């Protein structure tokens, strides 16, 4: 290694950038693991990744910096977001620990691990560095240098990663794809099945009663005024998002009866 290239300090600008963006990255990372909602975690992580991309650039890894933004932030994090959407974007996690002693163990491990890593780095004699100027310049730039390595010394590894990506793609398809193992049943068959099982044969009753309560999340009322579960979609029922207006309706009914009674009573009195 050429010792003349060795240096001990970076430029002041980079130092400033490091301290500001480094803080952002750490905060982002902390938010990633502490946010209740997964979507927030994902956004924080994306932020941290962008900061890291900047650091790559600062370290002379121009190609990686760009790839970090395009592949990681652009593709992988979006994939995460998709999955978050699939799972339910509003679902918030409870951060309460359920495993006994897990938090303490985690804290102990994390702290010990971090301290050991930092101690290790501190222990190493890394006071000087070479910089990438020469390496990048050797083949006419960072990308060219990487390309040369990638297609010469690491070509086998490169090809194998290709195979790995293909495999991963196929794997993902296999895992998420549900094969229809039996023939789709015809409408006749479905109908027969319903009859056999003694399920509700006619269409389910519509939700809502009266004009002012015909929203899908409001159960229709039976003649006695109690709500009928059947009228609301199953999804809403499971999410407990059924709005119950039966008491209101019953009160209305009661008021109506009262009013009519009053009126009728008055009429009777009038007759007498």
């Amino acid at each position, binding site marked *: 290694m*050429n010792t003349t290239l060795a240096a001990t300090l970076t430029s002041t600008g980079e130092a400033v950038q490091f301290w500001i963006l480094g803080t952002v990255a750490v905060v982002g*990372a902390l938010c990633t*693991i502490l946010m209740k909602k997964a979507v927030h975690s994902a956004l924080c992580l994306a932020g941290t990744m962008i900061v890291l991309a900047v650091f790559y650039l600062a370290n002379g890894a121009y190609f990686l910096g760009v790839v970090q933004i395009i592949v990681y932030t652009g593709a992988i994090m979006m994939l995460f977001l998709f999955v978050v959407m699939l799972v339910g974007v509003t679902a918030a996690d409870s951060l309460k620990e359920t495993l006994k002693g897990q938090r303490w163990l985690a804290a102990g491990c994390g702290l010990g691990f971090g301290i050991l890593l*930092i101690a290790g780095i501190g222990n190493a004699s890394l006071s000087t560095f070479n910089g990438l100027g020469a390496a990048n310049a050797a083949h006419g730039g960072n990308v060219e240098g990487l390309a040369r390595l990638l297609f010469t010394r690491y070509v086998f590894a490169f090809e194998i990663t290709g195979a790995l990506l293909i495999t991963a793609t196929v794997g993902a398809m296999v895992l998420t794809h549900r094969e229809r193992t039996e023939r789709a049943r015809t409408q006749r068959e479905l109908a027969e099945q319903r009859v056999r099982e003694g399920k509700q044969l006619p269409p389910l009753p519509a939700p809502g009663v009266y004009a002012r309560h015909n929203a899908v999340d409001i159960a229709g009322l039976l003649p006695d005024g109690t709500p009928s579960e059947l009228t609301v979609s199953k999804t809403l029922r499971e999410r407990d998002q059924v709005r119950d207006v039966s008491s209101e309706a019953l009160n209305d009914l009661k008021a109506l009866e009262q009013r009519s009674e009053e009126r009728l009573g008055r009429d009777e009195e009038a007759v007498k």
Partner: protein
Amino acid sequence: MNPVNYLYLAALLFTIGAAGVLIRRNAIVVFMSVELMLNACNLSLVTFSRMHGNLDGQIVAFFTMVVAAAEVVVGLAIIVSLFRSRHSASVDDASLMKL
């Protein structure tokens, strides 16, 4: 500033990621924490590449990204199918691997 600070930062991020893996139950967040750890490693690789003055570190970081991409694809697929069958993305719910 000495680039070794990047290494400290990487160690810090790695530790945070590790802690995330240990304390979070949501599989997606756990997975994100893993990604964070991978990124921390990449940062240290890139830094080392700079310190040593050769590009091999970056190549390794590049491979890390590729592998991470593959891993995310499969991992997320697993999460999705797990969620489909169990209606939950909690890693604690998948605790059948015991005697």
